[in-house]
């Protein structure tokens, strides 16, 4: 880093345990990612080690394979999932827990989910959307015909914590993301009281062109450096090629086994 005058701001924490410190039982936790792109797997494993339970998870999916969100659910820490698509391939852990009545499910259309999260971050008290009008997902919701089209009133989603995977971060919390790994991360950083980011690269202030910042630092609270994040899809691909180990559990296991 340099001696720039704004270097008194430094949101980096020492390690991944410090990153998830203080997350409370019962917390509402937003988790970035769509499929395998943008999952904060190491933060989720640290949350298993940290011990918080009775969590309400907000994510596009409901965990796949055995790592990350699936591992957190398998550890019995999740009470409820708010998501758009819990039935991805390899989502057996969630499906079993849901069938057993151990995890509650709230399904939200993906665009409504994204917009509700943004509304939470942007101070919007509610909004009308045509999406889901006339469908079972609108049952019990206020509706209104606007310009001849039936709309559903949707409410903002806030969270106590967001767990986010970025590609680059500077100490002020300015972030960029790789390719399609961006998805829900920017809106979740806005909507959570405490935004915790694992980033593959840490750069000096100014190294991200100010015009290219995707998430401005105002929406970020803690940064932890995870230089080589695990990808479950890559693990599965290696397994199919016969070259991989079974992937399981926590960061300790990950450090030992993978």
């Amino acid at each position: 880093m340099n001696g720039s005058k704004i270097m008194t701001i430094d949101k980096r924490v020492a390690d991944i345990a410090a990153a998830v410190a203080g997350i409370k039982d019962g917390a509402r936790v937003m988790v970035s990612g769509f499929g395998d792109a943008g999952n904060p797997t190491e933060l989720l494993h640290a949350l298993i080690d940290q011990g918080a339970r009775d969590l309400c998870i907000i994510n596009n999916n409901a965990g796949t394979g055995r790592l990350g969100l699936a591992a957190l659910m398998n550890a019995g820490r999740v009470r409820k999932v708010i998501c758009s698509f819990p039935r991805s391939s390899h989502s057996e852990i969630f499906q079993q827990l849901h069938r057993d009545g151990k995890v509650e499910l709230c399904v939200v259309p993906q665009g409504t989910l994204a917009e509700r999260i943004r509304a939470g971050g942007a101070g919007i008290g509610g909004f009308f959307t045509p999406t889901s009008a006339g469908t079972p997902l609108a049952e019990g919701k206020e509706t209104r015909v606007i310009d001849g089209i039936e709309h559903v009133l949707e409410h903002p989603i806030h969270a106590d914590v967001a767990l986010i995977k970025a590609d680059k971060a500077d100490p002020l919390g300015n972030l960029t993301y790789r390719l399609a790994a961006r998805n829900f991360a920017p809106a979740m950083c806005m909507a959570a009281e405490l935004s915790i980011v694992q980033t593959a690269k840490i750069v000096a202030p100014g190294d991200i062109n100010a015009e290219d910042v995707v998430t401005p630092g105002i929406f970020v609270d803690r940064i932890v450096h995870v230089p080589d994040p695990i990808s479950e899809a890559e693990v599965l691909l290696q397994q199919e090629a016969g070259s991989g180990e079974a992937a399981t559990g926590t960061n300790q296991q990950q450090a030992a086994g993978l």
Partner: protein
Amino acid sequence: MTPPMTPLSREQMAWRVAQEIPLRASGGTYVNLGIGMPELVANHLPDDAGIIFHCENGILGMGPVARPGEEDFDLITAGKKPVTVVPGAAFFDSTDSFAMIRGGHIDITVLGAFQISRTGDLANWSTGGADIVPAVGGAMDLAQGAKRVFIITNHQARDGAPKIVETCTYPLTGAGVVSTVFTDLAVIDVTPAGLMVREILDGLSLADLQAKTGAPLTAAADCPALARPQN
């Protein structure tokens, strides 16, 4: 009367849908393909056709599937398949991606269906079974938001039940959203006057088609034969 031709195969249905997508518009045609059979439509569109594929997870300018060994799992489709992008692609977040969908900026979406009603209601996300975990993804946003909603589906379910029905019995994805239904037997437009058969499988009578359909169909006397690829 000639015996009916073989119904269209999945690839032939995808080819037929592709014929309906405007090519080489200088302003581009923005298309979102649903997961499953709709993805096949891309196989039948020329490379330089001025069509930009949108992926709900934040991509405009999706290209071909990634070659083995070149997969990057930060670059996947809505169906979680590793993919590539073309020059001039753009990445953006989920709120912008669904602003494109919900704001009416996607010209055409191609989706599968469990049922389509006479008035263009679509059911394609849940069979309502208590044993199945419900999962909607972006289906409701696409059905409601795209300028035109094309459905690609077999005319009948595996058990022979009609997929085009008077009223959907499965949970709705959207009400009155379908523009055109492309089946293995016909092309049918949803219009204010009801379901209009635009093309019908060569050798199949309207009465035959009606017998496989759960809602009333109308067709011109000179309704053309269902187009199919030459090869």
